[in-house]
C-alpha cells in the first residue's frame, strides 16, 4: 500500500487525553452533541505528564496514522506541573521525529480545558484534516515497495 492510492482510506488517530481537562472537554463535546471527525480513538490517562514517549511511538508502530496528545492548559494542571514536564518531553520527541524521517505533524499536542468542548471538536477536525493530507503512515516500515 503506498500513500494516496486508496480512496477508502481514512486516518486512524490515537488520542491521549488527560483525565482532568481534555477528557472532560471531549465529554462536553459529546454531551453537547457537537459533530467532529470520527477518526480518533481516545485513551484516557491521569495526566499528560504520565504519557511516556514510548506510548506515542508504540501507537505509530502499531499502525496509527497520527497521535494527538492533549492535557490541561499550562498553569491549570491538576497535579500542578505535569503538563510543563510533558511539554518538554514532547518537544524533544518532535525534534527527533523530524530527524528520523517521521513527519512531525503526525504527532500533535494541544491544550484543551474541561470547558472547551467546541475547541476539542475543532481540534480533532484539524488533526484529522492534517493527517489526511499527509497520508497513511508508512510505519511499520516495509523495506520493499
Amino acid at each position, binding site marked *: 500500500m503506498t500513500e494516496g492510492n486508496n480512496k477508502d482510506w481514512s486516518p486512524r488517530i490515537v488520542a491521549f487525553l488527560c483525565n482532568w481537562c481534555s477528557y472532560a472537554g471531549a465529554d462536553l463535546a459529546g454531551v453537547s452533541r457537537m459533530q467532529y471527525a470520527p477518526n480518533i480513538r481516545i485513551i484516557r490517562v491521569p495526566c499528560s505528564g504520565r504519557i511516556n514517549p514510548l506510548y506515542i511511538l508504540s501507537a505509530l508502530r502499531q499502525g496509527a496514522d497520527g497521535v494527538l496528545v492533549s492535557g490541561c492548559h499550562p498553569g491549570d494542571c491538576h497535579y500542578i506541573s505535569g503538563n510543563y*514536564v510533558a511539554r*518538554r518531553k514532547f518537544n*524533544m520527541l*518532535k*525534534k527527533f521525529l523530524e530527524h528520523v524521517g517521521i513527519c512531525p505533524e503526525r504527532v500533535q*499536542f494541544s491544550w484543551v480545558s474541561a470547558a472547551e468542548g467546541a475547541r476539542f471538536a475543532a481540534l480533532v477536525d484539524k488533526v484529522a484534516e492534517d493527517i489526511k493530507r499527509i497520508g497513511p503512515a508508512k510505519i511499520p516500515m516495509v523495506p520493499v515497495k
Partner: protein
Amino acid sequence: MAIIKVKDNNPAAAIRELLRTMLEKQLVSAILVPQEIPSKKTVVQTLVSDPDKLDAVNPLAPIFSINSARIVVKMCIDQMTGPVSGQAVSEQPAEEKEAEPPEAEDSASEQKQEQAPEQEQGKSGEQAPAEAQSAAEDEPAAAEGQSAPAPIAVVLRPCEIRALIELVKLQQASLDPFLVIGVDCWGTYSVQDYAAMVTQGPQDSSVTADFLKQVTAGNFPEELRGACRACQYPVPTYADLAIQLIGDDISQQIRIEAQSEKGKEIFNALGFEVTAESKERKSAVEKLKEAKKQLAEQDKADFLEMISSLCINCHNCRAVCPICYCKQCVFDGKVFEYPLEKYLNWSGKKGVLPVPPDKLLFHLTRMSHVATSCVACGQCEAACPSGIPLGRIFQRISTAAQEALGYEAGRSLDDDLPLTTFRENELSAVED
C-alpha cells in the same frame, strides 16, 4: 597552570611520569588509566596502585574501546547505595573484570593491593626512606580513619567526563572518591583500525606518535571514528586537573591546570612552578572545532532506512551506551513478546510485516531515553555489527533535542536534567 617539559618528543611519557609522581607521593591512592598491552595492539583500562606498574600507560593512544564512565559507575556501586554488605561484595569481581590488566601477573598483584591498600603504602614507602618510617609506624587503618583517604585518579577523555557528569546527575555515580584528570582529545580510531595500524605500521614509530603528528598539523586521518569526526568537545568540560595539549607544541611541552579545589590541593602538593595560560590555546581549540564541523557536514545518513534494513536487533548499542543505565530494560521484558496471532494480524493489515517488528521502536525509545544526556561518544556505532552509523545519528538528534531544551549534556554539574525541570513560559511553539 604549569608547564611540564616533554622529553624525546613523547608527551605520553610526560603524563606517565606525572602520574607516577602522584602515586609515589601518595597524593592519590590509585589511578584508573589506559595501558598498552604487550603486543601494543590495543589499550585496556587499568587501576594502578603501584608506581612501578605504570610503564605501559598511554592516555594519548587514539583508540576508544569503552566509555570509561561505565567503569567509574561500576566502581561507585557501594558509594551510591550506602554500605550494604551484599552489594559491596558483588561489586568486587565486576571491578576486576572491567580493569583487565595487560598481564595475569599484574592482575594478581593489583587485586592484592586493592584489597590491602595499607600494604601498598608501606611498599612505596620503602622506596622513599623518609616516608617509610611514618607510613610503617602509623596504624594504617587509624590513619585512614582520621583524614579522608587519597582520591582515586581517573584519567578520562572529554566525552568520558561528560558521560560521567550526566551519570552523576542521574544518580548513578559519585565524584567524591575520585580525582578527575581530563586530557585533551583530537579523536580516536576504532579498535579494529587501531590494531590494523599497529600491525601494518613501521616498527620504529608508534601509532600514537604518528597520530599526534598528523592532528597537530591540522590533518584528520580518514580512519577517524565517525563520532570523533564531528566532535565539538576536544577539551574537558569538567576536570579537577586538566592536562592541556591543544595550542602547545606537544613535542616540547604540555600544560596542567587545576580546575577545582580538589585539583588545586594536588597541584600545590606537586610543587609546580605556576605559569600563565597559553595564548594560542583558545584560538587553537576554536580552529579544531571548526575543522570538525566541516567534517561533520559531509555526513548525511538516512536513519529510517538504515534501521529498518540493517538493524539485527542485537541491542549491542544499549549494552555499551554509558547513558543507558537501567537495570532492567523495557525491551527485555514480556511487553514485546507477541502471540502468533498478532504477527499475522499485523502482516494482514499492510500485506507485509518486517520482522522482528520492533527494531525501529527500540531505537526510537532508546533515543527518547538518552537524547537529553547523550554525549555522542559513538560507542553505539562501534558496537553495531551491521555498521549503522548510530553515533552520528544520535549526535545529530541529541544535539537538536538538547538545543531545543537549552541544555548541553555534560556541560556542568549545576544544570538540572532538562526533563526534570521546566519554565512556565517556554516552548509555546510546540502547541498549535
